[in-house]
């Protein structure tokens, strides 16, 4: 037994070593850079928290981006997570063709963003777009607008494309999680006369506690880092209405070569994610 106790840390070594070298070190470096003014070359000037202060007090675009990311998180948790769970539960039932349905919902997740951006811009295009043909068909022409040019709704239009593309991943995690739920639990409950809804809320959801941690964390992180879909569909416009922290960070770092400000945005992003995710994880993984 003593030998077993000693070797148990060895299980963590390969993963932790690579992880620290490749991920943690650059993360710390970025945190460190956020305290400097630096263009990537030449002299670094220590400026303390100035980069952070400027972002929060002076930077209009940063504020819009921050707000958009928070909206995006809420939309993702409410719509993407719920729909993914629903699909997983339905597609976990035994019926003919479920493999095909699963593949259909997962398929968009494999496509490259460059193609998704093009196709969804077509869908929203009032001249050739599918959406407007549909409205026409339903005699709702008056609702037709230039979808992606409306600052108030552009973000939501982009989100729908992201929902379509991203549903496959959480669905897959829920499916994997559902495999871990012992059948006996359902059988026992059914004997007790519980209905479908009761089974879902009293067995499925609690049994998926650990899967929810994965889904919640990955979705929150993905929402906070959302970049590609916005870049290919609206490039942050119109009038910055779809700007996100990741796209703004990219501009600051690589277009404006303000590495300090870019790193500060990255650090703020990480901090926000931690504030949202860590309490949830701590709560969910509490030992009984």
């Amino acid at each position, binding site marked *: 037994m003593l030998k077993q106790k000693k070797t148990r840390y060895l299980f963590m070594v390969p993963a932790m070593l690579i992880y620290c070298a490749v991920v943690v070190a650059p993360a710390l470096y970025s945190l460190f850079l956020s305290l400097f003014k630096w263009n990537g070359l030449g002299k670094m000037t220590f400026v303390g928290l100035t980069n952070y202060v400027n972002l929060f007090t002076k930077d209009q675009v940063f504020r819009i981006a921050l707000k958009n990311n928070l909206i995006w998180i809420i939309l993702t948790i409410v719509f993407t997570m719920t729909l993914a769970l629903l699909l997983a539960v339905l597609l976990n039932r035994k019926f003919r063709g479920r493999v095909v349905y699963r593949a259909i919902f997962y398929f968009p997740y494999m496509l490259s963003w460059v193609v998704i951006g093009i196709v969804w811009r077509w869908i929203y295009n009032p001249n050739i777009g*599918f959406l407007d043909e549909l409205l026409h068909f339903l005699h709702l022409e008056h609702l037709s607008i230039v979808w992606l040019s409306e600052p108030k709704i552009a973000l939501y239009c982009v989100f729908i494309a992201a929902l379509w593309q991203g549903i496959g991943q959480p669905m897959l995690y829920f499916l994997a999680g559902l495999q871990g739920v012992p059948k006996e639990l359902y059988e026992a409950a059914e004997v007790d006369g519980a209905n479908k809804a009761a089974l879902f809320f009293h067995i499925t959801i609690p049994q998926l506690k650990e899967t929810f941690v994965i889904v919640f964390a990955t979705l929150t992180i993905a929402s906070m880092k959302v970049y590609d879909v916005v870049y290919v569909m609206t490039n942050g416009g119109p009038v910055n209405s779809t700007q996100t922290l990741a796209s703004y960070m990219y501009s600051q*770092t690589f277009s404006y070569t303000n590495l300090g400000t870019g790193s500060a945005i990255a650090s703020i992003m990480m901090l926000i994610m931690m504030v949202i995710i860590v309490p949830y994880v701590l709560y969910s993984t509490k030992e009984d």
Partner: protein
Amino acid sequence: MKQKTVNQIALYTGLTLLALIWLIPVITVMFTSVKSSADFFSGMGLFELPEELQWRNYRNAWVEGRLGLYLKNGLIVCFIKVPLSVLFASLLAFALTRLGIKHSRSLFIFVLVGMMLPQQIALIPLNLVYSRLHLTNTYLCLILTYIGFGIPLATMVFRGFFAGLPKELDEAARIDGCGNLRLYATIIMPLSKPAIASAVIMDFLYTWNEFMLQSVLITNDSMKTVPNGLLSFFGEFTVDYGLLNAGVLISILPVFLIYLMFQKYFVSGIAGAVKG
């Protein structure tokens, strides 16, 4: 029995409707992949097929886009990286859930934080270090980096699944004199096929599609993987839509095959894992 049939019909109708919505953009991609640029510029609708299907878009994407070479590079990286990643992450998750390590929750959160780092910000330090070590333009640097960035997600998947497996399993095994390694290899992993399947699918997809790190770390054209290869279909301001869509459809074949191979491990619940 009647109720069951009604339910079945409702299930099929609902799912089919939803699936159709999901398929519309996919069909657009497929239709586009057999159109020529002239078809676009003549203002052809999204759901019309041209009279002459341009299958040569696929051929051109393969030959001119050199997808064969990029596919080979991508496969080499994936086939070395994904198994290693799954192995390392599952070992870590095993230690975190079943070996009674102190502060295992804090360690888990430590691993989680890595996912939160925007990859763009890591580009500069990674490029600096790799170029000092003369590791740019090698598969090794890609594999190491991708393992690092893939570990948090894979660890989460395994940790979540392992945590759901009953503790009684371990106790029984320990009584039989199982060591840590045997417990991992002969009891836990065989039960975790759904977790392995989703980890492999997700990790493969991430590795296959990653291009930001790759575009910086690999400057030798013959070492590039697929996503960067696809970029050659872009003009300075314009895109050949047909060619691009054909290229994308070819490029997802390996991922789709991996998905199909592993998805069969999602089979409606484990039975008999808990006895008594």
